[in-house]
């Protein structure tokens, strides 16, 4: 169980893992996430499932090295097992045929966006996708996204691939060109904040998939709380997707930094150990 079957480096910091877990492979839906723990001293942390193969009994996860836990996960090799893996968690994405969907993914956010793009396409929508990253190396899953999109715009901060500019530039171009019925954005909180501000300007219903800090991930601890429409909600059981226009992204950004000092210290200790 939880054995790593394949490991692919998208860049030196971004890695895709195909993990054996037949039950989750069968039961997961687009938008679901899992909680992982690496080693007996490890912490619990969430990752959104980017793909699954119920026949092979595998799920696919994409992880970017950020701190200790992601480093520990990436340090595992093919044949190793993840100590604890539980899911699928969170409410699945609401998928229906609504017309034209604009999907926007930033950085590793493109990985969880992929199954949603696929599901919207399969439901009969026209899907236009904007994927964005700092540079060419950090653009991931472009071919897979193309497979399920009617059109793809690639944006990089430095212009090393696709066009130069932020994700919102590509999004606004589409919005001005054609009628968009719904928008979905997944990426760093700051990217989702600005993408949401953009679509709010054009009154396009928008879902954002939030990446809050979690401990248990099952609705017990409340670490993942976020203010949506003035009310406190829990990302793990009420989300992870919310009406982006109602999300208090500034509060979310503040809360994501709540353990910054502890994280930096832990990363330092971990790198000294290596």
């Amino acid at each position: 169980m939880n054995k790593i079957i394949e490991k692919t480096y998208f860049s030196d910091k971004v890695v895709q893992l195909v993990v054996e877990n037949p039950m989750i492979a069968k039961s997961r839906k687009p938008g679901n996430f899992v909680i992982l723990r690496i080693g007996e001293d490890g912490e619990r942390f969430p990752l959104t499932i980017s793909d699954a193969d119920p026949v092979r009994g595998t799920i696919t996860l994409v992880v970017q090295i950020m701190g200790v836990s992601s480093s520990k996960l990436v340090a595992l090799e093919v044949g190793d097992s993840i100590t604890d893996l539980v899911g699928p968690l969170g409410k699945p994405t609401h998928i229906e045929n609504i017309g034209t969907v604009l999907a926007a993914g930033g950085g590793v956010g493109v990985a969880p966006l992929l199954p949603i793009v696929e599901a919207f396409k399969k439901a009969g929508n026209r899907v236009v996708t904007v994927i964005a990253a700092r540079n060419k190396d950090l653009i991931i899953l472009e071919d897979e996204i193309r497979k399920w999109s009617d059109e793809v715009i690639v944006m990089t901060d430095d212009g090393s691939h696709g066009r130069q500019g932020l994700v919102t530039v590509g999004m606004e171009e589409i919005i001005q060109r054609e009628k968009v019925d719904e928008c979905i954005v997944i990426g760093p909180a700051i990217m989702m904040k600005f993408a949401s501000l953009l679509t709010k300007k054009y009154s396009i219903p928008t879902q954002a998939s939030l990446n809050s800090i979690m401990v248990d991930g099952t609705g017990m601890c409340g670490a993942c709380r976020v203010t949506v429409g003035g009310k406190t909600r829990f990302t793990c059981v009420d989300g992870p997707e919310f009406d982006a226009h109602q999300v208090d992204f500034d509060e979310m950004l503040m809360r994501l930094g709540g353990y910054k000092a502890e994280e930096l210290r832990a990363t330092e200790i971990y790198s000294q150990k290596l």
Partner: protein
Amino acid sequence: MSLNPEYLKEERNQMWRAELRSKTKNKERMLIQRVKMPELAPAVRVKHQDREVNMGLELNQALTEAARCMDCVNPTCIEGCPVSINIPKFIKYIEQGEILLAAATLKETNALPAVCGRVCPQEKQCESRCFYVEKTDKPAVAIGHLERFAADFERNSGSSNIPDTAKPNGIKVAAVGSGPASLSFAGDMVKYGYDVTVFEALHEIGGVLKYGIPEFRLPNSVVDFELENLRKMGVKFETNYIVGRTSSFDDLREEGYQGFFIASGAGLPRFMEIPGENYNGILSSNEYLTRVNLMGAAMDDKDTPVLKGKNVAVIGGGNTAMDSVRTALRLGAQRAMIIYRRSEAEMPARVEEVKHAKEEGVEFMTLCNPLEYFADEKGRVSGMRLNRMGLGEPDSSGRRRPMPIEGSEFELDVDLVVVAVGVSPNPLVPSCLPDLKVTKWGTIVVDEEKMQSSISEMFAGGDIVRGGATVILAMGDGRRAAENMDHYLKNKSNQ
């Protein structure tokens, strides 16, 4: 669930019990002073998250305390026990020096005696119904201390008595969640001969016993020992498994499961919904205790961090609040405060927990209510505004209603706030079962006697039914659910 009076009489009439009764006169028994639980000194214990405060009775203390018990004709104490332990029988075994037989007696009806001996509010249950309390002005027999003594004695003896189980009947049943309700259910069902699997969402078995109750009150090693006993009896455990999500109830039915006991516990922590409550450094007691107890966040070699505070405010007056505030002290708080909107008399926490907290230096700011939080430029909580409360007429809970006193507002410097004002039921499992009847609060509706839900093969108990109760009430639910599920499944197979 009560023991048959005829059976109790028969047991009481056994020769050894009769002889023991005649050996010491009741008058002499009544002259013995109630034993005092030896405790680790406050100055020492506040430095150790992992050292138990109550150290347990010595053998001679236990023998003497056991002699206080009159072995009453009508043992009312048993009526006060949610899992119906044969209390006089186990205590008389202690008096006779047969401690292992006392432990075996506990395990006849209680899957977790070492746990209950530590965390049950005996003063509100068995001990409140003791002869001494009902008929004299003397304190009750220390039933809880003796229970713990017998269970610990067995654990430390290296020999563990495994209760008899019926011949396996091959019928598969599932318990959802692995807290006290489920463990108690599993213990009884495996005795009846069922093939029991306990499914747990977290990576550790034990539920609130592991993530909630701190080491200084209930060491994890004690819980693990009781789990090992259940394993030896044949109970199977699956971690990282959310029934309804990882696989569906239908999947489990296809695998042959015929009965389900849902005890998925109290979930969502409640907050007060006051301004600033989402600042960093304000967290639920569930989060705080889970980080420290389940994830070991206070230890250097663990990856999970925990925020530490110099001035820590814990909001609430229950046992969880006491556990949180005492944890904060042990993690280095200079000032650890309980902020509670009623007075100490209304506090739901056990008297013992309040006493321990005070000895350790916790400040009790009763009749105070938080209004708002302030933060520094990084969003970390730095202070709070409160007002003082007075008590008015009794409210629906029977406790006097706290009312704000006009013009009494004041501010307090705090850098960590733990909110322990209760929990709402965990929606994760009920949300997978559209046909399951739940209340407007999200608790599962059950027949109170049978613990059976609106889906006939599904029973439920513990906090997912009660909303927030004690370990022992959850265990009582587990036992009742087991008894009634057994009847239900047997009737079904006879039809």
